[in-house]
């Protein structure tokens, strides 16, 4: 079972990963966007970590709701509302249970990802964060590792795609050949989930 502490660690692990990869994310965003994705998420997850530390919520759902709200309030850009919605809606789906199962999380994440698709109007193959999130939510039914691998593969698979949403879409065919920054950060988020599980001894 996954408790609030697990979800807090997921968020701080993500924050560390974003810190580590910020320059790389900005580099990717520089090729087909506006060179801010790394600093956007860094600002957001720094705020998430600080908020979780200040007043640690006591349920998995509350952790994700707070994290999502922080992202919305501090990131801006496209990724702020999208990631914020992802976490808020996943958290909301988890309800106020003190602990949740991996299957419950997989289900909740599925509804969070659906909310992202609804908010941003993107579909699979549009070269967005959804290309990592959709397969990850699906694979989480199997295992954390499967989700991590699916997200990573999804991110890599954005390279040959032509963007149809977000800033990269302005480039038309020139967006082909570059990895989507949002899909890449989404893979970091899911990898942080698997890492949190691994650190806790695996498949809790």
């Amino acid at each position, binding site marked *: 079972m996954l408790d609030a502490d697990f979800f807090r660690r997921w968020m701080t692990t993500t924050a560390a990963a974003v810190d580590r990869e910020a320059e790389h994310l*900005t580099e990717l965003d*520089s*090729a*087909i*966007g*506006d*060179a*801010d994705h*790394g*600093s*956007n998420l860094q*600002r957001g997850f720094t705020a998430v970590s600080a908020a979780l530390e200040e007043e640690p919520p006591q349920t998995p759902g509350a952790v994700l709701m707070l994290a999502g709200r922080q992202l*919305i*309030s*501090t*990131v*801006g*850009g*496209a*990724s*702020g*509302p*999208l990631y914020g919605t992802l976490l808020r809606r996943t958290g909301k789906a988890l309800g106020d249970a003190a602990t949740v199962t991996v299957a419950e999380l997989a289900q909740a994440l599925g509804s969070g990802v659906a909310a992202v698709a609804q*908010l*941003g109007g993107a579909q699979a193959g549009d070269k967005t964060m959804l290309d990592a999130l959709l397969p990850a939510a699906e694979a989480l039914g199997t295992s954390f590792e499967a989700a991590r691998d699916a997200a990573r593969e999804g991110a890599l698979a954005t390279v040959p795609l*032509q963007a*149809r*949403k*977000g*800033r990269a*879409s*302005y*480039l*038309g065919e*020139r967006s082909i050949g570059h990895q989507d920054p949002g899909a890449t950060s989404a893979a970091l988020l899911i990898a942080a989930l698997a890492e949190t599980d691994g650190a806790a001894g695996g498949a809790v």
Partner: protein
Amino acid sequence: MLINVPETVVADALRGMAAAHPELTVDVEHRVVVRRDAPVAGKVALVSGGGSGHEPLHAGFVGPGMLSAACAGEVFTSPVPDQMVRAAAAVDSGAGVLFVVKNYTGDVLNFEMAAELADEEGVQVAQVLVNDDVAVTDSLFTAGRRGTGATLFVEKIAGAAAEEGAPLDRVAAIARQVNDASRSFGVALTSVTTPAKGSPTFDLPEGELELGVGIHGEPGRERRPMMTSREIADFAVDAVLEDLRPNGPVIALVNGMGATPLLELYGFNAEVQRVLTERGVVVARTLVGNYVTSLDMAGCSVTLCQVDEELVRLWDAPVQTPALRWGR
């Protein structure tokens, strides 16, 4: 770069604005710039905002006759809903608030969330989406046309209508009319360098230019060997006219991207006016300057807005902001 550290660039600029413009209320912590006398009783308020780095847009357009408030995001990053809600609350007199939103995914999503929240707080909100950039072609397979130079037209003209006491639905309708009647095309001669990244966003070899560039360093439609001012004017104006097909007079904004000397920009305006004359387009008013910029990018854009007498009258109406001032 003339900065301290990238992290404080926006806050530093707002402190500097506060010092230079006692006629504005600058909330540095929340990054909201409000005209000092807001809320103005009975008047519809206009709130805009967007990523920083496009100055004087938007905060430089706050004041009587134009915006009631502006929200400054991080460089090239839409502000967050909290800022917009705060701005709306500060300027709403009860007559409602018009959000002027440039069509970028980030701006659209954040303003949308803000509109919901403001609505919950009892503020009547309408929105206008500015999407004038003809460089973004196939809007079905993209995030749609970007909002660029027309933002100035929308903010000025709808701002004048609001100042005259028009109700919210009328102000919003005028804003939409202005946007629908406006098209832009931009060209970059150099890339832009953001403080956070510290190196050029795209690399554009000396001697080449980027046609149809955005104002966030988004690369453009096409790269070409350097063109003359005359050739660029032909290309940009024709790109706009092809889409706008005006059958009446226009207002022209000949805009610098930030690092283009005014000397060159005026020279470019001469070529823009020449093409327009050749194409039989009558120019009612012209504005030349660095208004919708992209940090240190060299380049220019042309925005045309087809106008009727009423829009020209609203354009000519008094405006008192840091960056645009006339009349009275």
